[in-house]
């Protein structure tokens, strides 16, 4: 089977699965989740095949398939992945089975739940594999709907508020991007097309570039999210069901960063260059601000959510510093953040399942009653604060060193974010897991079970693998990253399709 076909299969298997779940008989409670698990695992396995077939050292798109769709409007069904999207696809397919496993406790309305979850996967995969920008936008927005329902129907107390906030926030940004996409397509020479590859290098005046960049940026910045557009995030993450939080943090946020890398920079390189200081300021503001706010959170999940703001700040920083280290680190960090924050949400979810609270004050001394979960939590936490030897460090280090190579002073506040990360996470760990057990109900919690092991073990393994031997990951990222870096550094002078040269 050719990779191109396989890629499309990977994209649509979850959707088919969703339809299948939709027609399952009503009375079998376990059936939807088992089906969903099977579908997501199959998707993952298929994507592994894709990973194996992926050619290292190639900067351009691979597994490209193109079909006319709406020729009257220049819209094609064009998919393909490069080194950036590859890992996002992998991350998505990897996290989805975990998300399904984390949703085991959902027995009421299980059918629609798993339908939405699987539909979400197709949307996310589509976002990462679309080459046609119309298609991209389609998937981009389609993702919102299942997530809206996941938050709104299966979330916690303030779920409706969170769901609406999530959707409206992102929608405003997205729609601005839509206008920008249209403006871009209409300003390109020749016949109307939405093919990303054809639109690359569209000659645009600087002022146009600026406006269009901001249009795209509006969408991506909300999604990432950059301070001060982040306030949807804590609410959405906190109120979403565990799988929803995992997908939100793990994948949805990455869509924003991915968009910056894929579209905002290569399409409008001159404007992007001009905006670098602003972008870096926002990124660093996110790092410091997210961490500061996280420190005093009282809700464990909310704390993790704010940590995402800080982490995504790192990623955006890496994207915009204009060094291959920064960019590669940023992309790797997208993967890392998906793993570690995803795992943190899984863990918080696991604890919530046991105690039905997320308030830090309700815990204390849990390391005694649930030592293994505590240990895993600590482990993941360490990954999240960038302990060397674990995955987070590799990404953060590359980002910071990449930043330092070009912007010496910017690195100081950014690196200070690592200290802050240690503060909020360790303090939270201390309050939740250490000390005496102060509440009786905390004494009798059951420790990790097989399902949770199955859910967490792969993440842990990957955290170590990436931390110790990130080479296979970086090798596949680097060529594609180098191309974007080059565009960012040299503006539209150099055609982004020219050969890749080493950028320090």
């Amino acid at each position, binding site marked *: 089977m050719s990779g191109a076909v396989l890629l499309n299969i990977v994209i649509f298997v979850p959707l088919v699965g969703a339809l299948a779940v939709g027609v399952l008989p009503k009375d079998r409670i376990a059936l939807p989740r088992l089906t969903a698990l099977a579908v997501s695992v199959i998707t993952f396995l298929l994507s592994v095949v894709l990973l194996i077939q992926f050619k290292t050292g190639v900067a351009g798109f691979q597994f490209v398939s193109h079909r006319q769709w*709406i020729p*009257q409007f220049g819209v094609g069904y064009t998919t393909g992945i490069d080194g950036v999207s590859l890992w996002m696809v992998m991350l998505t397919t990897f996290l989805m089975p975990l998300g399904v496993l984390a949703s085991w406790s959902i027995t009421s309305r299980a059918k629609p739940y798993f339908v939405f979850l699987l539909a979400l996967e197709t949307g996310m995969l589509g976002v990462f594999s679309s080459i046609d920008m119309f298609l991209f936008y389609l998937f981009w927005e389609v993702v919102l709907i299942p997530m809206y329902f996941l938050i709104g129907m299966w979330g916690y107390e303030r779920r409706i508020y969170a*769901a609406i906030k999530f959707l*409206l926030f992102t929608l405003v940004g997205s*729609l601005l991007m*839509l*206008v920008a996409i249209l403006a871009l397509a209409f300003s390109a020479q020749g016949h109307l097309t939405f093919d990303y590859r054809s639109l690359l290098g569209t000659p645009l005046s600087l002022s146009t570039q600026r406006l269009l960049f901001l249009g795209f940026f509006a969408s991506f910045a909300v999604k990432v999210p950059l301070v001060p557009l982040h306030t949807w995030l804590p609410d959405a993450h906190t109120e979403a069901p565990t799988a929803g939080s995992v997908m939100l943090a793990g994948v949805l946020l990455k869509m924003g960063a991915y968009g910056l890398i894929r579209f905002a920079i290569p399409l409008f390189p001159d404007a992007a260059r001009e905006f670098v200081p602003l972008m870096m300021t926002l990124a660093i503001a996110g790092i410091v601000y997210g961490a500061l706010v996280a420190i005093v959170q009282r809700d464990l999940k909310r704390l993790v959510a704010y940590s995402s703001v800080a982490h995504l700040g790192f990623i955006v920083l890496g994207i915009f510093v204009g060094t291959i280290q920064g960019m590669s680190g940023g992309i790797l960090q997208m993967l890392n953040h998906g793993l570690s924050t995803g795992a943190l949400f899984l863990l918080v979810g696991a604890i919530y399942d046991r105690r039905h609270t997320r308030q830090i004050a309700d815990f204390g001394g849990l390391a005694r009653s649930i030592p293994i979960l505590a240990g895993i939590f600590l482990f993941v936490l360490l990954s999240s604060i960038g302990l060397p030897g674990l995955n987070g460090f590799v990404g953060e280090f590359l980002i910071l060193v990449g930043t330092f190579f070009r912007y010496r002073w910017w690195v100081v506040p950014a690196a200070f974010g690592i200290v802050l990360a240690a503060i909020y996470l360790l303090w939270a760990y201390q309050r939740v897991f250490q000390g005496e057990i102060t509440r009786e109900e905390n004494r009798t919690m059951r420790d990790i079970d097989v399902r949770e092991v199955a859910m967490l073990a792969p993440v842990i393994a990957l955290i170590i693998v990436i931390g110790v031997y990130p080479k296979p990951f970086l090798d596949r990222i680097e060529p594609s990253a180098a191309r974007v870096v080059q565009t960012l550094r040299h503006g539209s002078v150099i055609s982004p399709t020219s050969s890749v040269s080493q950028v320090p």
Partner: protein
Amino acid sequence: MPLNLPAVQLGGIGPEIALTVTALVALVAEAMVGDKISRWYLPVIATAGLVVAGVLAIAAWNTSKVQLAGAIANDDFAVFVKVALAIFGLLTVWVAREYLEREGIEESEFYALVLLAVAGMMLMAGAADLIVMFLALETFSIALYVLVGSRRRSLDGQESAMKYFLLGAFSSAFFLLGIALAYGAAGTTNLYSSPGGVQGIAGFLSTHASSNLGLLSMAAVLLIVGLGFKIAAVPFHMWTPDAYQGAPSPVTGFMAAATKIAAFAAILRLFDAILYPLRWDWRPLVIGIAIITMIAGSIAAIVQEDVKRMLAYSSIAHAGFVLTGVIAANDQGVSGALFYLVTYGITVLGAFAVVAMLSGRDEQRVRLTDYRGLFYDHPLLAGSLTLFLLSLGGVPITAGFVGKVLVFGAAVQAGYAWVSVIGVLASSVAMFFYLRVMVVMYMQESEDAQAALPMGSLAGGVIALCAVATIFFGLAWGPLFEVAQKATFFAGG
């Protein structure tokens, strides 16, 4: 002195004739059969009439003639709108059938009026003379005044009919004044130059410097006002929420879908074709109207508690969105607007079909709170309504998204990207109230189990059809778009 009778090309008004005849047949049929047996034959007759009208309309595709002494333009544009109207009529009739039965007002007059209204709208779509346009407008307006008030037992219905009527008559006067001024300027009300040697307004425009055309600009303003009233553009929209709320739900859907496309057909023809040379005069005004329409419609909707009223405000906002296509005044804009109107019509008809189904006898259950937990009681209905709402909100893979892309794209192409930006911002505000409905349907528990639905499979079928179409035109919208693109060809223009 011989009377120069024009060639009576009845084909040019074939659909209208067919509809009128069918309406009369329906009236006669009821008079003959009486109300002793079930009135199933009425919708059958109506269906037949609408189908025939649609077919006759299609037959004129690609012929593109100005007929009947310059009174009617049988171009692809008109054909497109006529076919859309026929479809809207069909959907309305099918939804209405069970609704009317439930409400106990299944009368031949209802069907006849729907048919006559469609006839009037079709005439409007093809009108190549301002006075024809006016007559067409009055024809369907008068029919709608009555249809809105057809729930005679309901004070709501009566009130909405009266408000609609009074304001409608008021606005007609302005429209008429506009025609008078246009006549004053051009000495004719014909839009196109006809073979008989009469110079139409289009020809008049081409021979005069636009700086001398103050009178025509004035006329344009008044025409905008009159038509803006029909499409529910702010500030001429005030009747809309009340009329939509009080009218029987199928009629509301019909108004939202059909009235809008008919009036927009006139707007598109008048402004984007005939008065195109005057665009620097009317465009700023239309931009202003479009912007406040989009914003006010969206904003006013978000606190509504009555679903019909909310959808009314939403339809106001949608008028604003379509107006961005008008502003663009290019082929993209016209075809986009047409596409938008067709898909919007289908969607909104579906939505009102759901509302009609759920409202219960006398439309007692139309409050947002009545929709609580709908998903758990009627998942398919809730799902369809969700789909329609998403389409109205412009979420991808639904037809509504494509429509928005096309009209906003047209505005962008014409250099009015900023209008599009305002449009998308307004539509995200608008999204809020669609979300509210979804919140109620999915995320809240129903207080009492939903009453059994007194409406049957026909309306259900319409809903399903609309749902499928909403998705279909959201994914495979190429063909419809292509047709809409062809329909931008105006006769003689």
